[in-house]
């Protein structure tokens, strides 16, 4: 992906930043492919229908339907019965950021990591929102500026309430998420 320009605004000051290609675990450590083989021949995933017919994976696709089949009009985005307007992509407008304590990172669940060239921003942590494409609900974003470079972390900020002596039921009702030697380097490939 070619680098994309992003206009950031911190404390009223506009800063031009450049977003580079997303960095995933595969880019750093490689990847593991799970394959199924029979006599050395790679098998393909498919489907068996009740009438005995078999289908290859590429013969099946996900599609959107309403009660009349394929939608004849562009669907609207609704939330709790209310229509939401789409927010433009962050690349088409400016994104305001505010400085936050570094400890905010402890409550942030990261899904995407982008290296950013944001010259002029002081080292620290900045919080805002980000829409890669136009969407109804932008995602939380933290911009971490280190001495050796900056990274845009896209994901979701979590609410982690303090736990008192009485355990609130919300902890138990929350949905399930869903070195041998001290000096040894951590193996992050874990493959």
């Amino acid at each position, binding site marked *: 992906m070619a680098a994309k320009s992003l206009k950031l605004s911190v404390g009223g000051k506009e800063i031009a930043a450049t977003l580079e290609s997303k960095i*995933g*675990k*595969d*880019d*750093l*450590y*490689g990847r*593991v*492919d799970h*394959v*199924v*083989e*029979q006599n050395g*021949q790679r*098998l*393909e*995933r*498919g*489907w*068996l229908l*009740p009438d005995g017919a*078999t289908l290859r994976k*590429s*013969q*099946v*696709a996900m*599609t*959107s*339907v*309403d*009660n009349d089949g394929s*939608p*004849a*009009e562009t*669907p609207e985005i*609704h*939330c709790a019965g209310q229509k939401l307007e789409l927010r433009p992509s962050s690349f088409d407008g400016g994104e305001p950021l505010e400085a936050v304590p570094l*400890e905010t*990172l*402890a409550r942030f669940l990261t899904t995407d990591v982008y290296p950013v060239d944001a010259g002029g921003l002081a080292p620290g942590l900045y919080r805002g929102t980000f829409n890669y494409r136009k969407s109804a609900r932008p995602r939380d974003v933290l911009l971490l500026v*280190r001495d050796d*470079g900056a990274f845009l972390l896209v994901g979701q*900020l*979590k*609410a*982690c309430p*303090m*736990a*008192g*002596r009485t*355990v609130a039921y919300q*902890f138990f009702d*929350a949905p399930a*998420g869903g*070195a*041998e030697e*001290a000096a040894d380097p*951590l193996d*992050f490939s*874990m493959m």
Partner: protein
Amino acid sequence: MFTLHLENEGRSARVGLSSPMAEKNAAPLEQVTSAGKVKRVQALNGQNFMASANSAQLIEGDPELDFQLAGRLMRDATAVYLDTRSAQPAIATEFKEVEVVYAPDGQEKERRSRVFRTANVDTTQPLKIVRRMPVKECLTKFVFRGMQQLVHTDGLTFDFLHGLAKSLQESQSMALVGAGPKGAGPLVLRDGGTPFRGFLYGEVEGKGDDARYRLLLLLSDQELKRPAAPASAT
């Protein structure tokens, strides 16, 4: 609720794990048309595999498309593995699952039988704190892709977790926790799940009956860094 078996300073306890909610908790989004709510379904796309189709057939008609099947919804289908070497794919009944490991440059490094990882956070062997790292270094060095909040289940586990959170806050450090006899192994929360490095982040406030704590298990499978530049060809 998940539980976790943790050892700290010679004591171990089984404590609860809770998935924190989003700070901005909002109702789910849905797509709607005048005909109702839009949902995603699996359907046949009408592709017809013609192993022996020639150019003349493709020019004269559309043998690669099956208009009878296109649009049919998938119902009650069973996932199978197919041997696609023959014109009519055959269902494979004897097969082995293999993992192929590739280096970042795409080169194949290793082939091995599939590894099935079992959950290891609540076994008879407690997770161990193997080292402490400065909070600033830890938070800015790793990408945290999972998070669980440790919560007590009784007064004893409250004291255990509050003490650990207080110790982490006072030392301005985070604790690296690991599985296995020496605490060197990664954490696997669910059977067949992804292995993660686990770090504990703790904060406390209040005293006596008003004492409260926040102890988070942050899960990381990636360092926050750029990939190494590819070696230049000589």
